[in-house]
């Protein structure tokens, strides 16, 4: 499922940490979508353009459209090629002039945007970008926009991370054990239960994705061998378990206040107009069934 992340569209959140970095997975996904023929835009804020393009071969590098916000983030040099509005303005501009065709936008990184801009602005911009194709009602794959955002989990508190994951269609959390990287993919489709899956993978030097099986499962650690489990039912003078024959005999026992099963079913079949239970009362000799009020003949 890791290779079909971008086919769903919307916001894909890549959550990485210090031990398991996500930029190589981001570059692998960028390479995959470039090879599929989609338009790819990169908003580079955290690393320089040379460092990002490193490892890609030349035809992929020619297909990537790179918007550089690393060299001059605050636009001090005031050249014409600087895009107005900062990274979010560039994001909106990409969506406005998109030709029909699927577009992939890679944000490197969302953490940089969250640290420089208010969280609500980032959320609103991402929502506007990732949902712009759903306005006409039919989601034709021609105008599909996928946004890949790299988020460093340890830099933010639970607030921004929670807000972004509630907006994201897919959330990939990187982890792993013993040198083997894994991706926990949580996919939220609207009005359906979220599905999650764990996929083990590795990134080859040319940034292609290699899906793998997980590491071999270790044998379960056995219980503490020093203290053998004590079974208190071993030396009892009475029987605590029922054998199968005894259980059957107990089940077939007719209880004293129980009617036969036919009468029970007849009573239980819901009669029309009755949904409650009944009380059956037979008056005995001492009951007075006179309906008149005994206080009526009092002379007050």
């Amino acid at each position, binding site marked *: 499922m890791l290779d079909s992340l971008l086919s769903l569209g919307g916001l894909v959140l890549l959550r990485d940490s210090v031990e398991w970095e996500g930029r190589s997975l981001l570059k692998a996904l960028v390479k995959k979508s470039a090879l599929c023929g989609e338009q790819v835009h990169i908003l580079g804020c955290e690393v320089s353009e040379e460092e990002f393009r490193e490892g890609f071969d030349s035809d992929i590098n020619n297909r990537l459209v790179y918007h550089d916000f690393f060299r001059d983030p605050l636009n001090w040099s005031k050249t014409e090629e600087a895009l107005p509005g900062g990274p979010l303005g560039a994001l909106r501009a990409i969506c406005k002039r998109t030709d029909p065709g699927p577009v992939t936008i890679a944000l490197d990184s969302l953490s940089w945007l969250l640290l420089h801009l*208010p*969280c*609500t602005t980032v*959320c*609103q*911009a991402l*929502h*506007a970008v990732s949902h712009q194709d*759903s*306005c006409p*009602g039919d989601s034709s794959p021609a105008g599909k926009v996928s946004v890949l955002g790299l988020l460093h989990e340890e830099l933010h*508190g*639970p*607030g*921004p991370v*929670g*807000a972004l994951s*509630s*907006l994201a269609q897919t959330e990939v959390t990187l982890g792993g054990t013993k040198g083997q990287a894994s991706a926990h993919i949580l996919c*939220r489709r609207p*009005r*359906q*239960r*979220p599905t*999650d899956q764990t996929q083990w993978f590795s990134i080859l030097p040319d940034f292609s994705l290699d899906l793998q099986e997980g590491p071999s499962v270790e044998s379960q650690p056995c219980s503490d061998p020093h203290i053998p489990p004590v*079974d208190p*039912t071993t030396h009892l003078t009475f029987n*605590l*378990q*029922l054998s199968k024959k005894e*259980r059957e005999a*107990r*089940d077939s026992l007719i*209880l004293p206040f*129980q009617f036969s099963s036919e009468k*029970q079913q007849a*009573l*239980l079949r*819901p009669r029309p107009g009755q*949904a*409650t*239970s009944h009380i059956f009362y037979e008056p005995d000799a001492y009951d007075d069934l006179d309906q008149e009020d005994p206080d009526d003949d009092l002379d007050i």
Partner: protein
Amino acid sequence: MAAVATCGSGAGSTGSAVATASKSNVTSFQRKGPRASGTNDSGPRLVSIAGTRPSVRNGQLLVSTGLPALDQLLGGGLAIGTVLLIEEDKYNIYSPLLFKCFLAEGIVNGHSLLVASAKEDPANILQDLPAPLLDDNSKKEFDEDVYNHKTPESNIKMKIAWRYQLLPKMEIGPVSSRFGHYYDASKRIPQELIEASNWHGFFLPEKISSTLKVEPCSLTPGYIKLLQFIQNIIYEEGFDGSNPQKKQRNVLRIGIQNLGSPLWGDDICCVENGSNSHSLTKFLYVLRGLLRTSLSACIITMPTHLIQNKAIIARVTNLSDIVIGLESFIGSERETNPLYKDYHGLIHIRQIPRLNNLICDESDVKDLAFKLKRKLFTIERLHLPPDLSDTVSRSSKQDLAGSTKRLGPGCGMMAGGKKHLDF
């Protein structure tokens, strides 16, 4: 406290005695007028708006929330002029269903609608509403569902207390065709009903430009726009009595989706002590003032699990009238717990209002669970088996032995063992 309670019940009984006496025309007591709500103009005219009915307990005018089971839990329905706040579940799957049932009920009854959202276009929300089940089919399908649910398990469990099988799982009052409908979650509402209805939509990205500067210590601009929009609609269409309505009086149902999320421009989900942390509470305060002076009822869904400052959740609860929390089992360890295997989540009724009353109208059932079957959304009492201590005997409950392992360290050692004691 006890004296007050008897006083209250005494007043109720004399009221009903007056009512019955006036019906039989024996006494000289005449009823002055119908017990309508305070928002209607006073007078002996009986105001009857389609889809509303007066509450039998406190005389408020009630509208249905779209789920008859929920109406029963709230004491008959949602009172006009109040706010129903739904705390969303974690993945936001079930709270939109309650939201849409409320709006669909408005369309079926002919009420006006006002739908506000920052996430989805209101026109798309309206296309997605569930279809109402017609009267003759609905009772049959509902009874079928309930009956099918009961019989397979009851034969296993109830060997001694078999008469309890006749007790219904949840009391469902009589559903007349004019108040409270059942909705089929798998079908969409017919297009002609939507077109025949009078609705207003508020989609935040269209109404607000992105370069608006936020002033400190005031409401978020999104909230200001929404309040102005609601106020305009109420004023122009005469829900507050200012423009006398020439046609039949009607009720405005307001639905606000995902209030407090970052898409509304509010940062309470992102930071703990932001500069605008009072924005949401001020909004609710002004909204309640607008509702109390007009013939409208409001439903709000809020992602409270994302709000970072717990004090804000407490303030929001105090500022709303009815608060219901949805907790779904998806993704939590309760999903695999056999105790909860029939249900999709729990419903917590956190607050019920006391409207012109000293006591509130709570039902005696506090542990409730919901499930979304193929068509219907049902709310039922959660039947938990009694305490599984090590002296209790059950027949062949090996799966419950597994569940006792999950019951925490407070249980005895024997309950955690694999062997189960049979007597």
